[in-house]
């Protein structure tokens, strides 16, 4: 986040500047030297953070920095800090007591000759964990443009958020300025930058508003770059969040995270990866859905006309298990470079099991999986809707030992999922649902090309895989959307 312009009382004075606090043994150690230096040096200024009667400077007095304005704006992390200033600019600084540095800075070769050679400093009050949030609000809060809303004194914070219609049905963390500023430390982007235009109301959302909703969802600052990339991916014509939120169908955004960021932020790609228990998995997806609700206006019963909905519309987000996967990752299969972090969004609902505990031959297992996929959505409906296949480690081992890679599995499934039209037409199997009779003599693919993305993940044990059935696929509905991200700046592409 860009630093705001520093106030006048944070301006560096010319010459030498020392910053100290009384509650620091090293500062107390150097206090007699400071008195000496102030008396003998042309331009020597001392700032004190905690007690303006310290240090004793004889006829002079230390500058009062109990507001920590000077320390905050000059990035003082340790006391004592000694800074050399020329023409208003910092030339160099030294922290703690290092005799050689202090002698060098002051030009006094005898300085502190009776003191130990070195003593580490203490933490500056401006970085005290108990104060730092309050200081961030005081010094950078003006950067935040969102309207401040004051809850009434007797109002419970959590009930107040429910009352204002800001939640998905679960409690949210109140998005105070301090929490939002802390969230924004997760990235290096201007809070005012527009991230995307959020459907269904087509409202521009800023980095700041994404951060506010990420706070409410329970995200940590290090998740924010993933949330931003996911919001960008969701709000594309390709992914079609507009149709997805408005449809009577079940689906919501399913977010798959690839690359080093997944481990760095502690995402779950193993046991229970689609279930509860992992903060990043649960809150990243939740933040995206809160943004669709709070910024875009996608509210159930209003624009969101889903007939049954799906628990995944709260949060459906997991990482791919890349370390021991027999397949190239989902992101790489979509053109992302190895080692690059990315999110891929898929329009889907909850997982359905594929049970096969006996196949040890890859072709047998592929047939097993295909037979379950055949009935996804409806055994007689083909091509229109997508599905995501999540292969478990134990099933993955069968493919790995048989020498099958991603392409081999994809190709075999496509062969196995060519369905005779005679089984699909209306009235076939005594079921009216199905295709017009003209298709009786054709073979049709269950899934459109690209309509069956494969992901690897899950716990070590369990001879099951999952199918996440999807929504209308491709240009007629939703296509998978991938965004890469720079995990430090949160910039995506």
């Amino acid at each position: 986040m860009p630093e705001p312009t520093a106030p006048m009382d944070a301006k560096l004075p010319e010459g030498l500047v020392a910053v100290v606090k009384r509650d620091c043994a090293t500062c107390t150690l150097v206090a007699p030297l400071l008195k000496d230096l102030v008396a003998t040096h042309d331009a020597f200024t001392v700032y004190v953070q905690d007690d303006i009667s310290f240090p004793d400077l004889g006829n002079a007095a230390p500058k009062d920095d109990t507001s920590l304005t000077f320390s905050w704006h000059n990035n003082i992390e340790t006391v004592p800090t000694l800074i050399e200033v020329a023409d208003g600019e910092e030339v160099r600084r030294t922290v703690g007591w290092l005799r050689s540095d202090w002698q060098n800075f002051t030009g006094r070769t005898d300085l502190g000759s009776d003191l130990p050679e070195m003593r580490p400093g203490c933490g500056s009050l401006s970085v005290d964990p108990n104060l730092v949030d309050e200081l961030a609000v005081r010094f950078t809060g003006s950067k935040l443009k969102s309207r401040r809303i004051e809850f009434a004194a007797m109002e419970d914070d959590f009930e107040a958020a429910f009352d204002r219609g800001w939640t998905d049905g679960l409690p949210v963390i109140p998005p105070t300025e301090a929490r939002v500023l802390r969230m924004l430390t997760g990235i290096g982007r201007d809070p005012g930058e527009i991230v995307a235009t959020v459907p269904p109301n087509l409202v521009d959302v800023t980095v700041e508003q994404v951060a506010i909703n990420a706070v409410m969802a329970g995200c940590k600052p290090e998740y924010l770059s993933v949330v931003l990339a996911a919001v960008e991916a969701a709000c594309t014509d390709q992914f079609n969040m507009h149709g997805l939120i408005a449809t009577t169908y079940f689906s919501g955004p399913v977010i798959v995270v690839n690359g080093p960021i997944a481990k760095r932020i502690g995402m779950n790609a193993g046991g229970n990866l689609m279930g509860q228990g992992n903060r990043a998995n649960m809150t990243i997806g939740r933040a995206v859905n809160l943004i669709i609700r709070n910024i875009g206006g996608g509210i159930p019963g209003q624009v969101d006309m889903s007939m049954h909905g799906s628990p995944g519309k709260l949060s459906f987000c997991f990482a791919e298990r890349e370390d021991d996967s027999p397949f190239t990752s989902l992101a790489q299969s979509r053109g992302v470079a190895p080692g690059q972090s990315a999110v891929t969004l898929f329009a889907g609902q909850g997982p359905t099991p594929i049970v096969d505990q006996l196949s040890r031959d890859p072709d047998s297992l592929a047939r097993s999986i295909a037979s379950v996929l055949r009935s996804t959505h409806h055994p007689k409906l083909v091509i229109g809707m997508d599905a995501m296949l999540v292969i478990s480690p134990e099933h993955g081992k069968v493919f790995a030992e048989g020498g099958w890679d991603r392409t081999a599995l994809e190709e075999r499934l496509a062969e196995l999922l060519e369905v005779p039209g005679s089984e699909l037409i209306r009235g076939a199997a005594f079921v009216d649902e199905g295709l017009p009779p003209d298709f009786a003599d054709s073979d049709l693919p269950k899934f459109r090309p690209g309509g069956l993305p494969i992901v690897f993940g899950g716990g070590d044990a369990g001879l099951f895989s999952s199918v996440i059935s999807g929504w209308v696929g491709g240009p007629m509905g939703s296509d998978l959307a991938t965004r890469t991200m720079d995990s430090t700046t949160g910039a995506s592409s």
Partner: protein
Amino acid sequence: MTVVLNPTAGKIAQGLAAAQRPVSLDGKVVGLLDISKARGNIFLDQLEAELTNRGLTVRRFSKPTFAKPAPVDLRHEIAASCDAVIEALAD
């Protein structure tokens, strides 16, 4: 007392007044918009026959897909060329 930042778009949608309904359809052009759901066309074929029998001019339109909003050009075309529109949501 807690102060929080507004998590919403901060705008309240203004209700739009519905267009004036024609008192009579005599001599009017009626658009029939198929949203491309299965069998919507059956319903609209029936309506077209009924309206044509009454001597009205009928124009047919369809959305490319039911899963996305109607393209803005299509909405403009309907607004510019019809006095009234009937949209079929049927499955």
